[in-house]
């Protein structure tokens, strides 16, 4: 992202590489770059995760607050996404420079969480019409090396997996007010169900081909991208075109097929990574390196 400038010749080189299914870094069209995942690295949050996808670095913190449910949805909790494009990623994001991108990402995330089939907001309800949990999912983009949407969604899903919501022990009604007694034991928490939370898959069109996980250079060569929110069982929860450019219906249908397949693989890979990381955290004294590595 930071100041990618490509000449026509370089663009053609990338295009030819994609055509022969051998990209600049040796990947084929449907390969991802190496990813790393670490959970629970922000102590002030109820859940957190950091995902590093090659050069793309995302840190997500989830915080819980008690709120009043919306009058039209009295039995549902709330979830709010906030994306902060840190100027660390590129000087262009300084001040309010990253706001457009941030709104685009957070809007897309909320759209893909909109369906009751992707995330059960009802489980966040504490007392119908009166109290519910509100999840603040705060996404910090620290470095962009291409494919932000995918990396962000992986980090969000991982952070939600890691989120501990305190258990409510007792409730006492006092007139219109409610007194909630939360469990005093910080380990007495419940976890969110993230089974159906989608992962985003970006398909970038270079020439006539669709590739996944584009690098910043590849993004620079492309005119059109498609973002799909795919769940574990291959359902599409949201779909949108990003960036300028258009698609032929045929390319789009093919994109749907490829995207779903990749999405299923991505969800599976994330699940395995989460299990592995979880196991590591449960070890006696897990090493926490965060950014120190």
């Amino acid at each position, binding site marked *: 992202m930071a100041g990618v400038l490509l000449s026509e010749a370089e663009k053609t080189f990338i295009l030819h590489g994609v055509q022969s299914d051998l990209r600049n870094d040796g990947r084929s069209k449907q390969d991802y770059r190496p990813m790393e995942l670490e959970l629970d690295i922000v102590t002030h949050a109820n859940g957190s995760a950091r995902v590093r996808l090659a050069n793309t670095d995302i840190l997500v913190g989830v915080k819980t607050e008690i709120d009043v449910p919306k009058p039209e949805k009295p039995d549902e909790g709330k979830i709010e996404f906030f994306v902060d494009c840190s100027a660390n990623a590129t000087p262009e994001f300084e001040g309010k420079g990253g706001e457009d991108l941030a709104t685009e990402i957070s809007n897309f995330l909320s759209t893909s969480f909109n*369906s009751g089939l992707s995330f059960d907001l009802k489980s966040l309800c504490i007392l119908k019409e009166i109290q519910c949990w509100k999840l603040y999912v705060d996404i910090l983009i620290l470095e962009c090396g291409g494919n932000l949407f995918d990396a962000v969604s992986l980090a969000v899903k991982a952070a939600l997996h890691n989120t501990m919501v305190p258990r409510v022990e007792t409730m006492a009604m006092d007139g219109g007010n409610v007194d909630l007694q939360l469990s005093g034991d910080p380990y007495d928490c419940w976890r969110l169900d993230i089974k159906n939370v989608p992962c985003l898959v970006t398909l970038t069109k270079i020439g006539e081909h669709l590739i996944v996980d584009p690098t910043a250079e590849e993004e620079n060569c492309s005119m059109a991208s498609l973002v799909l929110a795919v769940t574990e069982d291959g359902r599409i929860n949201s779909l949108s075109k990003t960036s300028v*450019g*258009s698609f032929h*219906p045929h390319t789009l249908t093919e994109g749907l097929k490829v995207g779903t397949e990749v999405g299923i693989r991505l969800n599976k890979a994330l699940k395995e990574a989460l299990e592995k990381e979880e196991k590591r955290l449960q070890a006696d004294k897990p090493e926490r390196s965060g950014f120190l590595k």
Partner: protein
Amino acid sequence: MPVDNRRIQGPEVSFPYCLFQQSDGRNKTNSNPSNLLTVRKDGRALLDHRKIYMKTGVVSQAKGSAYVELSNTKVICSVFDPREIPNRVEYSQHGELYCVLKYAPFSCKTRRAHQQDSEEKELSLNLKRALEPAVCRHEFPNFQVDIYVLVLENDGGCLAAAITCAGLALADAHVPMYDLVTAASLGVTGDTMVMDPIEEEERLCSQDVKEGQNHGLVTVALMGAHTQITQVWQTGSMTSTCVSDALSRLIQLCEETYPIAQRCLVKSVVNTISKKSTS
């Protein structure tokens, strides 16, 4: 909430009266979705679309403007002359589209705030994405074309109507374009597909269904002459076959709307010429 002292303010909180409706009236429609969809409120068959009305040149002060009506959904759009991109230091090779979509405060079931909310921002972005591929942006480097859309009444298919309307307005403003853009929307709930849903049907399609079933909304914008999809936006949850099925149906509808938009433009051209010749 921040106090807006540039407008006349009512009391701090006020509620839409629908919230206090007698309970028997409300639940009748919601509890029985299948009922609503076997006989649609306006008597259409499931895959019928609504009548569309288009008109260009409705705002005298704008460079180009258009008005689109999908029965009750009413959208107006105006486009202004390109101007230099404000607050931009670097030279940009391509011209930009600046799209703002706004709901009138009285356009929806519940009153809307005067400030642009996140839904409107999202729709504005989708609108921009839908129009960008159709405009020859290299023709006006470092300039931006302002496109303002106002939804006067929302009865479903807002984004689709806004895209079609803005496409017409751009053409009316003589902005160089590759092709006209037309858009259409479709709702899915369970096994049923509803073409061009009204607001009530849209809400029904956004409602949860049983696990494993499809639901949601799809909007597609198409450049008819080149068969290029300029924007696709789907919400809800559905299988990929369902999405592609919806896509093909929507493309068909967009193609049907395309000649209507063309005729509307031709008519406005004929009108201007005949006006000129008489004067």
